[in-house]
């Protein structure tokens, strides 16, 4: 009896621990960042509008994150331009066009794709992809936005495929039967019936893919070239918010202004991913209510 009660307690704790962890992490990150807001050298306007990121300058310290924000958004957008057609196409093929045997194989392979550690992706970007890009484009350096976007796209595709496929599977078979009874071709069925019916689920799939791409760190750190620079083209090197934190936090003296500003970029990042995930969640809820 006691054993059973204890087990129930442990499981209950595991259940609610997620909430505790999220709150604790947010509080901690925010508490570390807070003192910098009142510092003389720091200005919120500069933080959001300046591209000049000189956290360790001897004479003129500047904390402008505009280039980092632009880097994060540009590489994510480009990644989604690759990942959304590929992911949704994959989901449609898996759920509507492919036979059961091929589907099982494909699902396993896609899961494998999702299980590749991000540092391995980064390694592929740094070595294989960068050489390909230098060979076939006019880019002087292979580590750039295009490289990072391709890597991020490959990482986001499995998420989009598996959630998108679930969304399509959730469309009742009656819809398909009705469509076929009306003489719709397979493509008409997908385009006119299934996509509109599953659009919330598919949007959620895309948003979760976006969340994955925004939050990814190691792969973009290795593949984007890590240059503080507003990109003018897809072959420019960029730096993302995540990569910047990863590169600098380890060695910023604890409690220094630089350290606190990095935590502030963490708060910014947390807010962005929170909004994206919240959006995805609300959209999924919308699906369920129907």
């Amino acid at each position, binding site marked *: 009896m006691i054993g059973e009660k*204890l087990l129930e*307690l*442990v499981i*209950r*704790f595991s259940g609610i621990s997620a909430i505790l962890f999220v709150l604790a992490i947010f509080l901690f990150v925010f508490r570390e960042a807070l003192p910098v807001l009142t510092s003389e050298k720091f200005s919120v306007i500069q933080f959001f509008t300046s*591209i*000049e*990121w*000189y*956290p*360790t*300058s*001897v*004479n*003129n310290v500047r904390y402008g994150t505009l*280039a980092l924000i632009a880097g994060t958004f540009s590489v994510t957008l480009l990644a989604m331009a690759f990942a959304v057609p590929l992911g949704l196409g994959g989901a449609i093929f898996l759920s509507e066009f492919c036979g059961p045997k091929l589907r099982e194989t494909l699902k396993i392979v896609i899961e494998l794709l999702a299980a590749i550690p991000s540092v391995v992706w980064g390694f592929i970007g*740094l070595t294989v992809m*960068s*050489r390909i890009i*230098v060979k076939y484009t*006019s880019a*002087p*350096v*292979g*580590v750039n936005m295009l490289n990072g976007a391709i890597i991020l796209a490959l990482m986001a595709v499995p998420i989009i495929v598996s959630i998108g496929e679930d969304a399509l599977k959730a469309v009742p078979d009656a819809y398909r039967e009705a469509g076929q009874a009306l003489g719709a071709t397979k493509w008409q069925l997908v385009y006119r019936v299934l996509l509109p019916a599953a659009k919330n689920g598919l949007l959620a799939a895309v948003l979760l893919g976006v969340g994955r791409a925004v939050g990814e760190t190691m792969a973009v*750190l290795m593949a984007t*070239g*890590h*240059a*503080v*620079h507003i990109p003018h083209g897809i072959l420019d*090197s960029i*730096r993302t918010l995540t990569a910047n934190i990863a*590169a*600098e936090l*380890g*060695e*910023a*003296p604890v409690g220094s202004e630089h350290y606190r500003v990095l935590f502030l970029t963490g708060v910014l990042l947390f807010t962005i991913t929170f909004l994206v995930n919240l959006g995805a969640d609300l959209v999924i809820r919308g699906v369920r209510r129907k």
Partner: protein
Amino acid sequence: MNLNQVSRMGVVAALTVCALLYPGCSGSNRDAERAGAATIQNKGSDTMVNVAQAWAEEYRTVNPKVDVEVSGGGSGVGIAALIRGTIDIANASRDIKDEEIQQAKANTGKEPKGFVAGYDALAVYVNRTNPLDEISLEQLAEIFVEDGRITKWSQLGVRIPDVRDDTIVRVSRQSSSGTYEFFREKVLHKKDFELGSRDMNGSKEVVELVGNARTAIGYSGMGYANSGVKMLRIAEKPGQPGVPPTAETTLNKTYPIARSLNLYVLGDPKGAVKDYIDWILSNAGQQIVEASGYVPLSAKKSAR
């Protein structure tokens, strides 16, 4: 579920963690007590953190009673900790400043004493296909400094074969790197870097990127050279002959951007700290300096 239950669960979890961790901890503590051992706290330069860790590991086989704890953070962080008296040895890839000596005297009553444990020649790398062999410090600064005048290879009179756009691709280090700070101090004279350089996260990555990009230039430790790159000769002033980064030019101080790797202690070292520093300065310690890619104190001790 009430609070009581939650706290009980917390205790259970804490006990489990302790049970998992405790045997290891207590075991090593007991070993240490039995041997009457000492722990040496060693902190500072990120450039030296690898060689410092290699020393600490090797020293464990020499004197198992002494445990050396190594951490990075930067030369300034190490010296600040020494001034507060919280560590035994500070690693620094720069010389201690006068005001730091004064602070240490005021705070601890002891004068910091420095030992040079090795040298590093900061090499400037370009791609192997780049016809340039030599560069002056001034030109180097104009390439890397904020609003610098040199942005294209043609401005240096260099024509890179088979390249349409000859904009110089600057390869730098992340701002927390000690190498970054040394370069900023000695080459840029404490001015800031121009933004937009590819800031690599390690010395090796700088060299690899330069090896893959024909229009790139970067700086890194001399030990990282590979077949895709070449190290430039550095001229102190334009028109002067360039000096290649080698163990010899580092030791005779003709290479302009060489630096010593220092250890600082408070007062004259005693006991375990003295033994450790003596060992670092001995043949065995110096071999580790060389194995880590730096220049040992005397070229005679070098096996190369």
